[in-house]
């Protein structure tokens, strides 16, 4: 013990906690039974699909791993032999305009989606959703591909993409195909993609640039996403809502409304959309849309999170808020 150390010396704190030399570089002692046996880093989609098919044991793609590694660790998942890392594939990390669509690779981290100006300009609902998913560290690895493949009916990225009517590009042994967004889901946690064979490569979000309608009004598209949380329990929303619309003066030219959870799969309230499509956005139209929404949605009780009653109650304000915000955005643009 010596008392001469300067206030910021890093050697002697003055606190006597018995210390022991920490020897360097011993063979590692992990804290868990091996979460996986083999780890592959393919650099092309074809290679990745091939790796899935040829793995000697159960194999799955891994993007951010923010769902998958937790599931494996908590024993909620059958043991996995091989993980196929999707983040080294350039095609899956691309984010760019492709023709009339905004293309977002399925392995682009959510934080990049949140910050990207193209997304901000053409898919603001997605920007908003991406900014709300988890915290910055998780966002830096979590991806939209994982968010969608996990197939929860109220995942934030998923709901935004639902309203944006994204098209998924899916690769399998027989090549790639395009799938409408809502066809990706079978039930809560059940993806239509067979993750042991197929990979979501990316999402195409149709982009409508301003054009002039038949009534010579300018058509402007916009979108918005919001959610309601509860402060206890898991960090998933108890209700979220995304709206994409195309506005022509005071008329709703076209609209997509997604609500999570409004059923076992990400939910588009097509009846409410019909009630508004081609209509001026009046109080009466809004009421009709709400009635249609409440009639079509299948809200349910989730233990310790929210009752169906409560969801029916709060969806009213949430939907109005999101719709009105999107509506205003289409005007200002």
């Amino acid at each position, binding site marked *: *013990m010596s*008392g*001469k150390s300067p*206030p*910021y*010396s*890093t050697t002697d*704190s*003055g*606190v*006597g*906690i*018995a*210390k*022991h030399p*920490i*020897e*360097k*570089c*011993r063979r*590692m*002692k*992990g*804290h*868990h*039974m*091996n979460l*996986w046996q*083999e*780890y592959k*880093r393919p650099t092309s989609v074809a290679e990745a699909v091939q790796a899935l098919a040829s793995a000697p044991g159960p194999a799955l793609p*891994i993007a951010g*791993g*923010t769902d998958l*590694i*937790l599931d494996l660790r*908590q024993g909620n998942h059958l043991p996995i032999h091989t993980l196929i*890392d999707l983040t080294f594939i350039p095609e899956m990390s691309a984010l760019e305009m492709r023709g009339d669509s905004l293309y977002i690779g399925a392995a682009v981290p959510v*934080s990049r989606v949140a910050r990207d100006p193209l997304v901000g300009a053409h898919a603001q609902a997605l920007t908003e959703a991406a900014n709300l998913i*988890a*915290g*910055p*560290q*998780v966002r*830096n*690895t979590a991806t939209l591909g994982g968010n969608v493949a996990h197939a929860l009916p109220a995942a934030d990225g998923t709901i935004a993409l639902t309203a944006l009517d994204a098209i998924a590009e899916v690769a399998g042994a027989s090549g790639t195909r395009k799938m409408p967004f809502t066809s990706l889901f079978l039930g809560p946690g059940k993806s239509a993609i067979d993750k042991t064979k197929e990979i979501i490569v990316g999402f195409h979000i149709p982009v409508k640039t301003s054009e002039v309608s038949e009534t010579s009004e300018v058509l402007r598209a916009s979108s918005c996403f919001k959610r309601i949380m*509860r*402060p*206890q*329990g*898991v*960090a998933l929303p108890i209700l979220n809502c995304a709206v994409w619309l195309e506005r022509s003066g005071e008329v709703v030219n076209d609209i997509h409304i997604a609500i999570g959870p409004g059923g076992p799969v990400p939910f588009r309230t097509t009846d409410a959309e019909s009630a508004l499509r081609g209509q001026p956005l009046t109080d009466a139209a809004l009421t009709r849309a709400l009635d249609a929404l409440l009639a079509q949605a299948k809200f349910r009780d989730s233990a*310790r999170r*929210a*009752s169906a*009653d*409560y969801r029916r*109650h709060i969806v*009213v*304000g949430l939907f109005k808020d999101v719709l009105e915000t999107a509506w205003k955005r289409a005007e200002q643009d």
Partner: protein
Amino acid sequence: MSKINLTVNDQQYSLEAIPGETLSTLLRERLRLIGTKIGCEEAECGACTVLVDGEPMMSCVYPAERADGKTIVTIEGLAQRVHEEMKLHPLQEAFVEHGAVQCGFCIPGQIMTAYALLKRNPNPNSDDIRFALKDTLCRCAGYPSIENAILAAAQALRTGEPVKKPTHIPNSAHSHKTVGHSHLRPEAVEKVTGEAVYTDDLKFDGMLYAKVKRAMIPHGFLKRLNISKAKALQGVIAVLTAEDIPAEKNHGLVIFDWPVMVGLGERVRYVGDALAIVAAETQEIAETAISLIEAEFDLQPIIANPVQAREAGVPQIHENGNLLKHIKVRKGDMDKGFAEADVVLEHTFHTPTTDHAFMEPECSIGVPLPDGRMEIYVGSQIPYQDRTQVARVMGWPEERVRIVGQLMGGGFGGKEDVMGQIHVAMLANVTQRPVKLLFDRRDSLIVHPKRHATQIRVKVGAKKDGRIVAMETELYGDTGAYASLGEKVMTRATTHSAGPYDIEHVRADCYAMYTNNPPAGAFRGFGVTQSAFAVESMMDMLAEKLGIERVELRRMNALHVGSVTNTGQVLNESVGLTECIDKVDAEMRKHNPRPFDPIADEADLNIVRAWGLAAAYKNTGLGGGAPDISGADVELYADGTFQVRSSAAELGQGLVTVMRLIVAEEMSIPPEQVHVLVMDTDLTPNGGPTTASRQTFVTGNASRYAAKTLRDQISASMAEKFDVRPEQIRFENGTVHVNGHSLSYADVYKEMTALGQQPRVRYEYEAPKTKPLGEGGDMHFAFSFATQAAEVKVNKLTGEVRVLRVIAANDVGMAVNPLGLQGQVEGGVMMGLGNCLTEEFIVENGNVVTDHLARYRVPGIMLTPEITSIIVEHPISAGPYGAKGVGEVSSIPTTPAITNAIYNAVGVRIDKLPVDQEMIARELWEREGK
């Protein structure tokens, strides 16, 4: 096998890939960069944050193989980063200066996250900081200090000027030369560089890894246990069961009712009961071995709550039944009291089980020594009692065990019970190799004692003018499967259940009941958190009923000097409650002169704001007749430095700093000249348990009296040497003045040792005697008082609640280290806020639902309100310089202040925690007749 080529802190590595390895494991275990901490391994806490190619990532869920080709920066890479020499980064410096470092466990993650933020945004505002730190949890919860530190560091980085020190923390009104002024923690620097060593950071040669087989059923008899497959597994060195327990079978803090392991034919009382323990060459093998152990039970009906536990005819969990203790408080005559009352109100409240969720999960390491002794490395709040408990079970004399306390990543009461200490002692003894038992977050959540869930009925009678004449309470406390400190906790809940008020007729009955839930024990607030919620809600209900302003009602009934408490104690001094109430009231009214009226938001009429207020008090020290003793050594060394030693525990609360300041004060030296050694049963005298906000008082006093005694010895010795009267010797500015001579302490050391005297003193301080409950007189030697006001915003459609501001006044007697106090107050408020809004440890029929951190939400920086701390100082004569405890009282009034504010905003009375936004919304829509 593939290679991982990566750069870590500017150094290149080429490592073999290991299946299943995460980046955190690679960094911690292979590169021994232990500054990266593991708090949850589920991407929830942020303690493991490192930069990967410049972006913050959670290394606990980052596959190591993905790091191939990447550049990693860890906390260890920061200090060198800015300048050539080993110098702290401005962020590190700012965290130290602003008191943002408490237990330190989260700090590497906080700093790395902040570092990434400043690289992207050199001039962040408060919102940017909150957005960036959203998921980087600090359970000590000095979020405001963390935010200030980041702002100060950003400024320093932009301007190149030195880091600005905090300016908003006043000195104590009773400050001396050293105590009463803000001082930095001695261990803060190692905590910001990542060098601080916590138990799991230690490794010993030949060390084995342990895991415990838990019953995972709430109630039943163990019928069969098959360990043969586990034993046969390659790499397993030992598998032990109850049959291998050498001596006493049970442990416990007060009652020895908790089996070290449950044996064949014996009763399992909760899911966390241990059945077998394994030591193996690796953690993976230990875990596999555990999964190979088969157990069969004769299942029994489950006692799920304390009310059920007291019903007739239900199964009895312990030999003496389900009642741990019926606790009674009696004062005056209830019939008379209620007959005198003009108004009588009655209401029942419920509070849930909650978890400490300290960021550092439990870890113990047993190390057998060649001479047959056993060392146990552990972060423990009560090292000497650990020693006793280990020795009892091993059948050894206590001296054969040495507890070597380690830095603790938070405790909050949750590291008082023995967790792995006995298990590692048994395994290390059998294998004669060091054995580490690290809990993962799931073990931690399932096994250790919690805050008691309670049901509290309050009946109050008052005169029209507001004078409370009678208060009757009935409490049920869920103490779970084992006693732990249940009796003490529920006693405190009971004696404080009439609030900090002077009431003539009081009656309280509490039933502390065993159930098949995880045990409940000590947790910051020690039962008073629960009863304060009930009684302070009732105070507002009463104020409304009487039509009396709620602050006035409290003022009118507040305990004051001369009051007699419920338990018959006359308060002779140091009752700062009224000043706390007045100061909070005045501060609140600066924001809004009509604070309790709801104000609708102009932009959105569904959003309503209002203030709420609550008061509280909390004993300092064990009380109730328990001798409250702490020992401290103070020793002078040849180089003129001092060391002060006590086994008292540093859990992040700042005791080490307090001890250091006190000795510096007494010896008239700079604090840097005092070193502190704590928590070692071989090297430090018994400081008793670190609980009940007692350590500043008792170990503070022990340190002070030890220093004083040493000073007297120095005086006597110098008087003899220089032939003067001892009174002529002065201690000033680090020197001893004798008759014109000035001696440094190094000189003094030389002189004294030359005279054959050892400049070393051990002092055993005993706090003023107390009386057991029921005997009247002084049940406690000191009380701290507090008042808090909270401003909330409630959304009437969704029921969502946000806390905007909290004003907290705490009567702490005297603020020994105002900087440390600031952290305690911020953390206390945030823990109170979590207790109110976010936290609920859910057990369904004995099974734990909240078995990982994702399900048990502790408040993050996003929920942090503006916190204004007001220090009130009514010194207590027996305390060191007048100080009394603050660790707990700072957390107690927050919950009722918030729930009262909710009521004031929207008229919904919260009588069950945590606040359920759905319940608020539902009540509002039903009221509107929808």
